[in-house]
C-alpha cells in the first residue's frame, strides 16, 4: 500500500505529512517508557523483520498480490509507540533506497500504515485480548484478528486521502469498495503471518512481548 507520487495532490500530501510528523514526535516520547536495554534491540529486530517480510508478496486473487504490513505485529511485540517508529523507519528506507513509495507521498503512507494501522490494530488487539481466556495462545489469536482488520483500516486511510485530494476524478465509493475488498483479502495473509510470528516470539522469549507483559503485570497488580 505504498502510495506513489501523483495519486494525491501536494497540498493534501503536505497536510498529512504534518499530521504524520506529529504522530511520530508523540511516538518518540511515548516509546521511551517501553524501550530499555532489553527491548530496544527487539524493536530493531522487529523493524528489520518487517522490512524483510514486506519483500515477500504473496498472491491474493487473480493478478493481485499483497505483503505483510506488520503494524499489528509490531504493536503487539514492542508496543504501539515503538511500532509507529519501526514502521516509519521501514517506509522511509523503502522510499529512499528502493524507490518504493513516493517521496511526496511519504506522509500519506506513514499516516495510513504507521499511525492508523498500528493504533487501530492495537485497539482491536486490546479488545479481543480482554474477552479471551488468559492464555498465551489468546495473545496470538488477538494479534491475528488485529492484523486482519488493520490492513483494511490502512486502506480506508488511503480512501480518505483520495476523497480529499485525488488528482483523478473516479468515484470515491468505487475506490472505497475496491480498496476494502482487496485489503480484507490481504488481511488474511497478514493475520496468518502475525499469528505465527507472535507465537514464535511468545514460545522463545515471552518476557519480551509487550502485549503479553502488560497482561502479566495487570494480573500482578490485581493480586496485590
Amino acid at each position: 500500500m505504498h502510495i506513489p507520487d501523483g495519486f494525491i495532490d501536494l497540498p493534501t500530501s503536505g497536510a498529512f505529512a504534518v499530521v504524520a510528523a506529529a504522530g511520530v514526535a508523540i511516538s518518540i516520547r511515548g516509546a521511551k517508557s517501553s524501550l530499555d536495554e532489553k527491548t530496544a534491540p527487539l524493536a530493531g529486530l522487529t523493524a528489520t523483520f518487517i522490512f524483510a517480510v514486506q519483500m515477500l508478496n504473496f498472491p491474493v486473487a487473480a493478478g493481485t498480490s499483497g505483503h505483510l504490513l506488520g503494524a499489528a505485529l509490531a504493536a503487539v511485540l514492542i508496543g504501539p509507540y515503538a511500532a509507529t517508529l519501526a514502521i516509519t523507519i521501514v517506509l522511509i528506507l523503502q522510499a529512499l533506497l528502493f524507490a518504493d513509495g513516493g517521496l511526496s507521498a511519504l506522509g500519506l503512507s506513514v499516516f495510513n500504515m504507521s499511525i492508523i494501522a498500528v493504533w487501530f490494530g492495537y485497539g482491536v488487539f486490546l479488545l479481543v485480548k480482554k474477552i479471551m481466556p488468559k492464555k498465551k495462545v489468546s495473545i496470538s489469536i488477538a494479534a491475528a484478528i488485529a492484523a486482519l482488520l488493520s490492513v483494511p483500516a490502512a486502506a480506508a486511510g488511503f480512501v480518505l486521502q483520495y476523497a480529499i485530494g485525488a488528482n483523478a476524478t473516479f468515484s470515491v465509493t468505487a475506490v472505497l469498495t475496491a480498496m476494502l475488498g482487496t485489503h480484507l483479502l490481504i488481511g488474511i495473509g497478514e493475520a496468518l503471518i502475525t499469528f505465527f510470528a507472535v507465537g514464535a516470539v511468545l514460545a522463545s522469549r515471552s518476557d519480551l512481548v509487550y502485549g503479553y507483559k502488560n497482561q502479566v503485570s495487570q494480573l500482578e497488580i490485581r493480586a496485590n
Partner: protein
Amino acid sequence: MKQKTFLISGFIASLFLAGVVSFYASSSPDGLEKVAGDIGFIDSAKEHTNSDGVLADYGVKGVENARLSTGAAGVIGVIATGAISTGLFFLIRRKPGGIK
C-alpha cells in the same frame, strides 16, 4: 532462549527471507496498484524521484542475474534497517539510572 541467541536467530531469518525467499515473491501488482489500475487512477502516478537509484525496485543496478540482484538488495536492506532502527531505538530508550 538467551537474548543474544534470539536476536541473532531473528536477524538470520530476516537475512534469509530478504536475501533468498524474496526471489520467489509474487510480482503481481499489490492491492493499491491493482485497484488503481482497475478503476483507472493509476495514470496519475508519477515516476519515482529515485527510480534510477542503485537499489531501485529491490534490485542492485548492474547485476544482471535476477536472483543475485534481488537477494543482494534484500540483504543490504536488512542490514540498513537493522543498523538504523536499532541505533535509533537505543538512542531514545530509557537510560538505566536516569539522567546523568
